[in-house]
C-alpha cells in the first residue's frame, strides 16, 4: 500500500503509531501531483516547498508530543479560500495575480489543527458552474472514465471540481470546498467521493471569496463520510469576523458516524421523482432506502411542494447577490487592470471587468444587475425571496415528521467535457437535487453509493435539520456501509 492510499482517518492512525511521517505522506502526494496533474489540471498552484516545510515542522511538533487533530495531514485548498502569502485566484483572470495578506478562517482553523497544504485547487470561475469548465486556468478532468468509451474526457462537476478530482485521484487526503447551489455535493458525486455542505452559519465565510453571500457555505470533500466528519470538526466554529457565523458548539461529528440509523425516520420527497431521470438513479435511490430499512430505519413519503421552483429562484437570488459582491473587482485596489492610454475611470472599470471576467460570470452579473434594477426588483428579486421562504417552510413542515431526507445527489453521472455546453439553462439543471438545501440553509451530504452501467459513480444525498449534521453523518455512514463502495477511478496515484 502506498501512502496516497490511506484514508484520512487511517493516515492519522498511522502517524500516531509512527508507521509513517508527515514528510513521507506529503512527499508521496507531491510526487503523485507531479505525475497526474498535467493531465487532470486539478491544482492551479502547487506549494511543494511550503508543504514540505509544514510537514517537517509537523513531524517535529509530534516528536515533542504536540499533535493537533489533523497533525501532518496533507490537504488541498479550493482556490476560493484566501491563503496568506499564496496566490488565490477564484479561477478568474481578474484575480490571477492576487496574493492575500490574510488567511481565511476555515483554512486557518485547519492550520491550527496541524494540517499541511499541498496547494490550491481549481474551480469554476468565482464558483459559478457545474462542470469546472469555466475556470480561467483551464478545465479539470474527472479521473473516472466510461468503461465502454474510455477516450471521452469527463467533467469532475463543479464548482469544486479541482477539490473532488484531487481527492478521488489520491492527490490529497481531503480538500476544502464551497457550495452555493451544489458545488460540493455534485462534484463529490461525479468523482465517487463524499462531501458535505454544512448548515448555513456553521463555517465562517471570512476570507472565502464571495459568490452569493446568503447561500455560500464551506465544507470538506474526502474519500469517506467519516473523513468528512473529521475535517468538518476542524473547519467549523463560531467566528466574530463573519456576521452570519452562528455561535453554537461544534460536536464530534465522527462519533455520530457510528450511531446507527435504528429508529430514525427518513423522508422521501415525492417531488424529487423527476421525469427524465435515468432509471438507474431511481433504482439506486430505492436501493438506498432499502439499505436504511434493513438497518432499522423507517422510510416515509413526504411532500416538498415548492421543489420545482427552487432552481429558478436560485437563478435570481444567486446572480443578484453575485452582481453586488463582484462589484468590488474594478481594477483599482487589487487584481487585473485594463485600460487604454486615454481611458477615464469609468472606461477603466468597464475594460477591466470585460477582460477579467469570463462569459458565465459576465452573464450572471448581467442577470443579477437586471433583476435588481429599478422597476424589476419586486417582480424578480422580492418574488424569489418569498418563494425561498416557501421552500424553507416546506422543509420545516417535513422535518416535523422525519429526522433526515434522502434523495439522489445528481440527475446524471459525470458528462463529457463537450456536452451540455450549448445552453446555460441545461447546465443549471445539474443542481436540481442540491439547490434546495442552500435556499433553506440546511446541511446536505453526498455519499458515493454505486456505479451506473458505464462504470461511473452515482451518489445519494442526505439532507438534515439546521445544525443537525450529526444525524446527516449517521445516515450517510449507514448508506456508505451498506453500499460498500470500493470502485476506484482509472486515473489515480500509483495506477498509471
Amino acid at each position, binding site marked *: 500500500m502506498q501512502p496516497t492510499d490511506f484514508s484520512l482517518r487511517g493516515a492519522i492512525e498511522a502517524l500516531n503509531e509512527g508507521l509513517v511521517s508527515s514528510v513521507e505522506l506529503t512527499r508521496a502526494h507531491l510526487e503523485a501531483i507531479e505525475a497526474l496533474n498535467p493531465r487532470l489540471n486539478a491544482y492551479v498552484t502547487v506549494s511543494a516547498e511550503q508543504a514540505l516545510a509544514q510537514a517537517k515542522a509537523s513531524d517535529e511538533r509530534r516528536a515533542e508530543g504536540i499533535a493537533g487533530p489533523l497533525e501532518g495531514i496533507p490537504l488541498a485548498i479550493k482556490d476560493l479560500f484566501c491563503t496568506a502569502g499564496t496566490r488565490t485566484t477564484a479561477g478568474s483572470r481578474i484575480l490571477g495575480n492576487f496574493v492575500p495578506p490574510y488567511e481565511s478562517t476555515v483554512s486557518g482553523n485547519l492550520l491550527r489543527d496541524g494540517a499541511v497544504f499541498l496547494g490550491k485547487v481549481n474551480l469554476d470561475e468565482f464558483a459559478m458552474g457545474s462542470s469546472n469548465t469555466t475556470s480561467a486556468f483551464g478545465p479539470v478532468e474527472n479521473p473516472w472514465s466510461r468503461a465502454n468509451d474510455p477516450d471521452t474526457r469527463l467533467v469532475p462537476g463543479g464548482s469544486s471540481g479541482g477539490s473532488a478530482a484531487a481527492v478521488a485521484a489520491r492527490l490529497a487526503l481531503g480538500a476544502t470546498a464551497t457550495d452555493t447551489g451544489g458545488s460540493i455535493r455534485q462534484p463529490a458525486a461525479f468523482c465517487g467521493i463524499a462531501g458535505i455542505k454544512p448548515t448555513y452559519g456553521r463555517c465562517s465565510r471570512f476570507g472565502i471569496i464571495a459568490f452569493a453571500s446568503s447561500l455560500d457555505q464551506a465544507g470538506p470533500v474526502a474519500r469517506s463520510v467519516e473523513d468528512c466528519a473529521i475535517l468538518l470538526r476542524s473547519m467549523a466554529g463560531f467566528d466574530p469576523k463573519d456576521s452570519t457565523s452562528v455561535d453554537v458548539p461544534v460536536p464530534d461529528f465522527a462519533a455520530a458516524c457510528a450511531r446507527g440509523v435504528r429508529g430514525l425516520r427518513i423522508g422521501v420527497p415525492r417531488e424529487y421523482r423527476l421525469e427524465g431521470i435515468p432509471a438507474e438513479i431511481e433504482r439506486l435511490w430505492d436501493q438506498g432506502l432499502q439499505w436504511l430499512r434493513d438497518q432499522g430505519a423507517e422510510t416515509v413519503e413526504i411532500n416538498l411542494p415548492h421543489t420545482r421552483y427552487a432552481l429558478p429562484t436560485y437563478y435570481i437570488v444567486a446572480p443578484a447577490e453575485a452582481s453586488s459582491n463582484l462589484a468590488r473587482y474594478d481594477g483599482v485596489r487589487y487584481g487585473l487592470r485594463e485600460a487604454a492610454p486615454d481611458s477615464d475611470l469609468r472606461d477603466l472599470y468597464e475594460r477591466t471587468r470585460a477582460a477579467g471576467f469570463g462569459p458565465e460570470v459576465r452573464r450572471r452579473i448581467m442577470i443579477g*444587475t*437586471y433583476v435588481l434594477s429599478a422597476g424589476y426588483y419586486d417582480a424578480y428579486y422580492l*418574488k424569489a425571496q418569498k418563494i425561498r421562504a416557501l421552500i424553507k417552510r416546506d422543509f420545516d413542515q417535513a422535518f416535523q415528521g422525519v429526522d433526515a431526507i434522502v434523495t439522489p445527489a445528481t440527475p446524471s453521472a459525470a458528462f463529457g467535457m463537450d456536452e451540455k455546453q450549448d445552453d446555460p439553462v441545461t447546465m443549471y439543471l445539474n443542481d436540481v437535487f442540491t439547490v434546495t438545501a442552500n435556499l433553506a440553509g440546511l446541511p446536505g451530504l453526498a455519499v458515493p453509493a454505486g456505479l451506473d452501467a458505464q462504470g461511473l459513480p452515482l451518489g445519494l444525498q442526505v439532507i438534515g435539520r439546521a445544525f443537525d449534521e450529526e444525524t446527516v453523518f449517521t445516515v450517510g455512514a449507514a448508506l456508505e456501509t451498506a453500499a460498500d463502495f470500493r470502485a476506484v477511478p482509472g486515473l489515480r496515484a500509483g495506477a498509471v
Partner: protein
Amino acid sequence: MSLDTETVRRVASLARIHLEEAEVARLQGELNGILAWIEQLQAVDTSGVEPMAGGGATRLRMREDVVTDGGIAEAVLANAPDRAGDYFAVPKVVE
C-alpha cells in the same frame, strides 16, 4: 418580459462591463433564455409571505463599536495595480 438590445446595453453599462457590438445579439439571446425560464415563478401564489433575505438566523449580531484593526497600509496596498504613496492611483477624475 423580454430584453431588447437597448436594455442589454443599459444593463451592461450599469454593471460596468464593456460590451462589443458583436456580443450584444448573442448575450440578448442567452439572457432572454434564462429570463423566460425564470418567468415560471410568477405562477406561484406568494400573497402574505414574508421574504427570506438571509441564509440562516433572521437577526444579525451587533459588535462592539470599537477600532479592531488598522495601521496596515502596506498590506492593504500590496496588490494595488497602481499606487501613489499611500493611495490607490486611478486616471484623473477631476479637471
